[in-house]
């Protein structure tokens, strides 16, 4: 096999691709967080739990109702979005005018309750969820074997992330959204229903986590712990990208996937810490994050 300086090139280039795959996962998850924080100023610690819920709903839909993967990809995010809307309306809104810390604690509590509930009902070993038949197998590239399902993860998450960015940054709806959060009174004066926009945005941001959960179900085991494991990493990514920067969340997500993948190749023991190390360095040099605007 081709090697340079004792490094296996096939493994390395495979690694870069794998990093990109994981990065697209991170991008999807951090995007939801960035939208919710950027537009609503809510630090949503339940995002990981909603990702877990997405995977579990996909499993339940298949096993209890016979709803297959493709349908789940649409139905589950909608269901999670509705749950999020209820949470926003009845739990988050009453404390919307308090310090950010309160929404953080509230959503953290919700996450713990959900995780505990699912551990109690389904145990901690995880549940199996098969890769849909259409995406089984893989493609042999010159340097690696690319599983079709992983390729699908890249494609679908890039489409979802890209169109979300486009809607928020380039369309009239996005402009209302941004304006509504800048100056709610003024927008209300123009006859725009700001609370409704807020609720829908929260629902959409959380639905993204649900979508990521369905995508994750076939590759990771569906377990109550899956959300809490990934949440901290995703928060670090949002911070590195710049709190609230939509494009920053997407690009940093992809970038961190690659950084983490390379660390796994060269020094695997550090792979869980490298993102946090990166976060420390970025915060020291650029406190607003890579793509954040200086306050």
């Amino acid at each position, binding site marked *: *096999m081709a090697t340079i300086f004792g490094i*296996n090139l*096939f*493994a390395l280039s*495979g*690694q870069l691709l*794998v*990093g990109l*795959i*994981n990065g697209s996962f991170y991008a999807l998850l951090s995007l939801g967080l960035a939208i919710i924080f950027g537009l609503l100023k809510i630090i949503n610690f339940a995002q990981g739990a909603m990702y877990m819920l997405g995977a579990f709903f996909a499993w339940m839909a298949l096993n209890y109702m016979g709803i297959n993967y493709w349908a789940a990809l649409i139905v589950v995010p909608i269901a999670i979005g509705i749950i999020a809307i209820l949470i926003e309306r009845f739990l988050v809104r009453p404390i919307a005018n308090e310090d950010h810390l309160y929404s953080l604690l509230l959503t953290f509590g919700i996450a713990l309750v959900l995780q*505990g509930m699912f*551990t*109690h009902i389904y*145990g*901690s*070993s*995880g*549940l*199996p969820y*098969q*890769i849909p038949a259409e995406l089984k197998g*893989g493609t042999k590239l010159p340097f*690696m*074997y690319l*599983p079709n*399902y*992983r390729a699908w993860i890249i494609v679908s998450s890039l489409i979802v992330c890209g169109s979300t960015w486009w809607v928020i940054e380039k369309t009239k709806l996005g402009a209302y959204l941004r304006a509504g959060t800048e100056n709610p009174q003024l927008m209300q004066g123009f006859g725009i229903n700001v609370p409704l926009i807020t609720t829908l945005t929260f629902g959409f941001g959380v639905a993204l986590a649900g979508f990521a959960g369905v995508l994750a179900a076939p*590759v*990771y*085991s569906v*377990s109550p*712990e*899956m959300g809490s*494991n*990934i949440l901290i990493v995703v928060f670090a990514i949002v911070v590195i990208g710049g709190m609230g920067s939509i494009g920053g969340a997407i690009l940093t997500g992809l970038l961190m996937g690659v950084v983490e*993948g390379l660390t*796994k*190749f060269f020094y*695997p*023991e550090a*792979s*869980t810490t490298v993102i946090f190390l990166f976060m420390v360095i970025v915060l020291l040099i650029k406190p607003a994050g890579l793509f954040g605007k200086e306050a």
Partner: protein
Amino acid sequence: MKIMKKTVLAAAMSLAAATGAQAAGVSDDVVKIGVLADMGGVYADICGPGCVTAVEMAVEDFGGTVLGKPIEIVSADDQNKPDVGSAKVRQWIEDEKVDAVNGLVASSVTGAVTKVLTDAKKIALISTSASHAFTTKACSPYNVHWTYNVAALANGTVKPMVDAGKKKWFFITADYAFGHALEGIASKVIETSGGEVVGAVRAPLGTTDFSSYVLQAQASGADVVGLANAGADFVNALKTSAEFGLTETADVAGLLVFTHNAKALDPAIAAGMKATTGFYWDMDDQTREWSARFKERHGSIPAMGQAGAYSMTMHYLNAIKAAGTDDADAVMKQMKQTKPNDFFARNAYLRNDGRMVHDMLLVSIKDAASRKSDDDIYNIEATIPGDVAFNPMLPACDFK
């Protein structure tokens, strides 16, 4: 009135004398077993509340009393944290008069707890920990290690594969004490059997994405990729191996597989994989009978540590009965003198180092077509005699 007082006093004194005489048998008038395990975390399914159920069943089957004294159970969650576990056990010993601690899952917790127990001369009944340290470098006259250990896993799974010509091995190892121990002992078995370890990669505990590690294993050109991890790590590593086609070019060997994890795997991926286990519920009528009772109470089939917890509790209570006391030294002596023999312990004996030697099973995971129910997971391929599975006793740990 005076006479009345005297009579009462005399009666009270004779009563005290009577109970005092019996107290020589059972200290504090109760035999108390603590069950310490991870009750809600990643290892909750493999011991956790199920170990409590198993110990309760043993106490009930034994009759609820020993030497005329009640047997009580207390339980606690160690959260997989050594400090939490050892603090709890210290409190049990000081305030609650616990005589022995059962359960014990994460090897790190067990290491901390067995030290506390040894200092207090109380018995550790280790049901689910994998490390072999408790009967080697951390051996103690009060340790009983029942179900399995890493040596038995390596001897059971690795050796037959090397003998069958699978010489080149690569390890994906959980990056903590248990993973290192398992990789170390498996490597030793490979090398002494004429094989070679071509590389290893250490994945942090709780890794969800194993694709990078799988790519490195693939690039190593090994015949066998050994997964020196457990639980969700094992499940995720195997799923990723199948996705990236590793299972087609090399054998993937799970070194520690629990039935609950095997159940969580898609049979299309896991079918044919071999593993070593201390117990399988569907082995014969005896195991099926007990497992059915367990499942009725607990809701799922027993994991090996849960069956072990029952068997070990029975052996412990029988030893108290035979020794006529719950004194730890006398009970340990009795436990080592009598051979355990029940649905779990086959051809079994307890060595002086506290290692319970019994037949292990080499199993393979069934494919979807040959499964009769959700719980029908394994084919039993072979029985591995205890003396082959477990490493010999170290002279330094020969506690007579």
